[in-house]
């Protein structure tokens, strides 16, 4: 298969579609009144192809991808579960897809009702008092919560400057804290991978606005001392933020609100089965408790006298995006929750833990499992011994897995594990699939280093030179 760009396939005079033309919008028509200096001198150099050519080009490109629908995709911390097709179908219903966000509320009651109910469901699942659906992704949810925290302390007349993150946290946590204007304090984890209470205590004082925490941690381990942790932070007047990236482990089993968290975000594109789309779109609703509810960005949906309506919270931080939320993504998450119901969600979390523990135990004799205890939905292997023994790195194992028809786990994360391979099977994979993946990893463990270094072999391209790409970046196709 070639790797020619769509621009190289372009031939002047072709077109892929006849656009509706009700106004005689032919050459030179229509730009009347636009000052000469603002009229486009030269048409944008977009490609010119027939519909058949465009179809073949992009369908051909799709075939160069791994995806959940075609391969097992055990990417740790990403929850690559099966994405039910009914969710796609309902989110694309013309009544939803054609609804303009600035239509009067009376004309979009269906969309508003869906959002209102989803706010309620997510508040119940997390144990929060209220939820905003605005944020567009997980990191967007994080920064939203941090904006709220910043405003909250500002209004209390005690501006606080610091945000604490464990060294095992997602990179978005410190980056979000910095974007919201906080100083980031990173604390080292305890030897067992949990939050080090002494390190936490040492970092706590009246300047701490919040602790950001993932539970289960990025090692897949439930933070058993969570009550002590939230009490310590609350003890200095700080808040505790729940990074919901790993919520797939806990649905219906334990709720962030009951653990003492004050704010949470959830990833619709992880826990609630909406597809990742090659990088997005996601949705990252944020929940809050107590006084913080008043700071939620808005608008949010409420039930008024004349039906559902959009409203702003009294101390709202304002807007974090255009309009109300990534509705089509939210509709898929809503459909997922309606499909599973309470017991289905709980079973999903239980089976995610069963699958992860099963794989961990099948692998722990041949691979180093640095934190080898009951995990929740994911676990982390280390290739440190293989590196020492024969110069095999995590990336080599990842590429060898690709050749065997499996997507690789997340590698080199969390940062506290050397040569990390982070595996999250999810609850939707069959025992046969889990076994086949484990067998592949066991086989790879016996391979010679040289063999592994040559992987991957079964793709349109072999190992790519990333250094070259960065040294002299070519970020667009040159215009002919």
């Amino acid at each position, binding site marked *: 298969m070639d790797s020619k760009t769509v621009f190289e396939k372009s031939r002047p005079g072709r077109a892929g579609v006849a656009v509706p033309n009700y106004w005689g919008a032919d050459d030179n028509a*229509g730009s009347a009144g636009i000052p000469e200096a603002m009229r486009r001198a030269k048409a944008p*150099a977009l490609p010119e192809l027939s519909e058949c050519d465009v179809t073949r080009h992009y369908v051909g490109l799709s075939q160069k991808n791994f995806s959940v629908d075609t391969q097992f995709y055990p990417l740790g911390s990403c929850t690559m579960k099966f994405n039910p097709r009914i969710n796609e179908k309902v989110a694309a219903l013309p009544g939803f897809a054609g609804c303009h966000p600035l239509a009067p509320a009376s004309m979009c009651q269906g969309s508003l009702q869906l959002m209102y109910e989803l706010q309620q469901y997510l508040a119940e699942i997390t144990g929060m008092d209220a939820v905003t659906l605005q944020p567009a992704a997980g990191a967007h949810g994080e920064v939203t919560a941090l904006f709220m925290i910043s405003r909250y302390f500002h209004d209390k007349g005690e501006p606080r400057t610091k945000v604490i993150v464990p060294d095992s946290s997602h990179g978005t946590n410190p980056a979000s804290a910095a974007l919201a204007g906080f100083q980031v304090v990173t604390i080292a984890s305890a030897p067992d991978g949990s939050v080090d209470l002494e390190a936490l205590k040492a970092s706590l004082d009246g300047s701490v606005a919040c602790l950001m925490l993932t539970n289960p941690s990025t090692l897949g381990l439930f933070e058993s001392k969570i009550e002590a942790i939230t009490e310590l932070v609350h003890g200095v007047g700080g808040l505790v933020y729940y990074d919901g990236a790993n919520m797939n482990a806990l649905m219906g089993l334990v709720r962030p609100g009951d653990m003492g968290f004050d704010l949470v975000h959830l990833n619709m594109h992880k826990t609630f089965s909406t597809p990742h789309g090659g990088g997005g779109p996601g949705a990252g609703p944020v929940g809050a408790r107590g006084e913080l509810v008043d700071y939620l960005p808005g608008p949010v949906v409420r039930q008024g006298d004349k039906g559902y309506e959009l409203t702003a919270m009294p101390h709202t931080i304002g807007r974090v995006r255009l309009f109300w939320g990534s509705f089509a993504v939210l509709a898929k998450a809503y459909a997922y929750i309606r499909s599973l119901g309470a017991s289905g969600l709980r079973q999903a979390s239980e089976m995610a833990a069963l699958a992860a523990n099963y794989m961990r135990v099948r692998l722990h004799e041949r691979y180093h499992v640095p934190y080898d205890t009951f995990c929740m939905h994911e676990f982390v292997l280390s290739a440190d011994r293989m590196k020492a023994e024969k110069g095999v790195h995590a990336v080599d194992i990842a590429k060898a897995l690709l050749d065997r028809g499996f997507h690789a786990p997340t590698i080199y994360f969390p940062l506290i594990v050397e040569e990390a391979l982070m595996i999250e099977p999810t609850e939707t994979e069959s025992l046969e699939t889990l076994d086949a993946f484990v067998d592949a990893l066991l086989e790879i463990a016996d391979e010679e280093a040289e063999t592994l270094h040559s992987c991957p072999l079964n793709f349109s391209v072999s190992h790519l030179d990333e250094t070259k790409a960065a040294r002299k970046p070519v970020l667009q196709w040159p215009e002919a």
Partner: protein
Amino acid sequence: MSYLPHTADDRSHMLQTIGAASVEDLLQPIPERLRLLRPLKLPEAQNEYDLLQHMKALAAANTDVGANIFVGGGAYNHFIPAVTEMVTSRSEFLTAYTPYQAEASQGTLQTIFEYQTMICRLTGMDVANASVYDGGTAAADALIMAANKTRRRLVYVSQAVNPQVRQVIATYLAGSDIEVRELPIEQGMTVLPELTKEVAAVMVQIPNFFGIVEDGPSFCAKVREAGALPIVAVGDAVSLAMLEAPANYGAAICCGDAQALGLPLSFGGPYCGFLACKQELMRNIPGRLVGITEDRHGKRGYCLTLQAREQHIRREKAASNICSNQGLCALAVTVYLSLVGPKGLQQVARGSKLAADALKKALGAIDGFSVEFAAPTFNEFVLRCPKGRAGEILDYLAQHGIIGGCALGQDYPELSDCLLLCCTELTKPEAVERYAALLRSWVSENAQEGKA
């Protein structure tokens, strides 16, 4: 339906392998007192058929107005060819993750590269990222980039920039050391003050929120003179086919929302923020970038590049916190632009403007109504209604199945009697005539009431 494949035998085999008696054993690390001992309060699980009926009923509770959508304000009802949706619903694009494993993600990587190229060609810029959340966060990112690049801490944003975009900017920069000041407007156009040496950047929107095509070249020249960076936010992205590419008249950064280029309205999202800049800002741009490289055999391939800007490498020192972007939306835009091509996009732009000009002319001629600003507009314009009646007119049109525009009073008190209207190439001549006829009926009905 819970999409679980495990049979009872599977479960007992797995538990046995683990050495656990039950799933409960695995949950021991969760302190007993924290456990939720009741079922979540959620509706009963629904089968696929019932769910579909339920969702259809919700969708039907939205009013179907067909193409009688005369409102834009950041979301535009343009035609979407069938192939766009076909490609974005391909499993291999839809259900893939971020392309961190380059060899197994060449499809996604190459489409992002093509998207970057198309955004560069539309805007005239040198670098475009793989997308951000929407036009609002793209604008906030643009200002942060400019402040970081110039090491200056004051930015100006025109009041003729979409108010929602300005609200996003305000939220994003509230906790930062960057000060945002707004530029006043006169006759619907931005008034540029004398700029001091503290100014990092000035942002205008073209076409602006009122649909007016502002004077880009003179704006950019004045901003450049002060050593600041001119930022052009784009209104309806389709306008780029008719209006000069912002880089060609001096913009340093161009941002906006690409929703108009192939994405459904979907009640406000997901959309696709685009962000593009001149070469000298390449290392300041946030978000993913895809570049060309070679494999071991010298074969062309695509990979994520310049990742040292990003959060998963730099943590709190990253250019931004963005991780998930709008990948699939950017793919839709790429396919849309490949299908319509340069001539098709120009035709969409012309049709949209012709329709809006026709509506402007028709409504401006009705007794008691007038076009608010004289400056040339693209596909949106401001209509002044009889005093105190704008809301009532919207209700009247809504009763006749028309979304007649959006009220401006909340964001612009001086325009509380005004509506912002929009047309696209999907607005038919008969729809324009019907809108005008309804307004005339409203006038005569109210005139009669007035007499009675």
